[in-house]
């Protein structure tokens, strides 16, 4: 029988799991430093739009913690430069210069556990769309 990926029936993304060595410190970062909305049912879950970020501690599940140096969660902000300046003022580590890809701005940074994150703003419309 021919394989059809549709048979897997992926409906949506329920959450993105953020590994941490200190969930309290991570919660303060996502909730206070980044200002994400905290989930009403869990102090370790935060929302960025329709996506829930769930902080977990691998060591508490008998697994090894390693930071995610890949899998950058791209947070949309209205002004990447301004957001970067504000976060750097709060001691957040950024990696490299903000770059302009010709369609968007991106600035790479890390959470306190070293997980890679990104500030993002696409300013160009997709081809075929009228400019907003």
């Amino acid at each position: 029988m021919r394989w059809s990926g549709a048979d897997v029936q992926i409906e949506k993304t329920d959450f993105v799991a953020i590994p941490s060595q200190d969930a309290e410190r991570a919660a303060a970062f996502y909730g206070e430093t980044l200002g994400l909305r905290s989930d009403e049912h869990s102090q370790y879950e935060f929302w960025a739009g329709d996506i829930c970020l769930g902080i977990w501690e691998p060591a508490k599940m008998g697994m090894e913690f390693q930071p995610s140096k890949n899998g950058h969660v791209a947070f949309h902000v209205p002004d990447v430069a301004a957001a970067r300046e504000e976060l750097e003022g709060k001691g957040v580590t950024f990696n490299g210069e903000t770059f302009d890809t010709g369609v968007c701005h991106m600035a790479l940074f890390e959470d306190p556990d070293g997980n890679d994150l990104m500030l993002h703003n696409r300013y160009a419309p997709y081809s075929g769309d009228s400019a907003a």
Partner: protein
Amino acid sequence: MIDVERTDFVSVIVRDLERAKTFYGETLGIRPNTKAHASYPEFETGNLTISLRAEADHFTPSRTAIALRVPDVDAARTKLESVGVAFAGETFDTGVCHVAFFGDPDGNALMLHNRYALVGG
């Protein structure tokens, strides 16, 4: 505040772009974004865009696991295992949800997930 408005995507670095495109698009059946740049293919899960890019050197797999909802984790796992997708450990029943850990061909962390308990319950 920096005014995070939404999550635009999760950027997943892979070593082989064509192999990854086949995995996300065909094996997992996630809809590709036909307007995406050819070097940065995107797959739409509905509420999250998975954006792929290739990097052969200094590669390290993502541990920012993306939990993909399916109606039946066991059924989806069985289907994926039948075409060679490797899962790590047994499917967990946490008491509120089922979760099974797997990865893309480069080992980037993914999960099949289904919450069966009412939220807040």
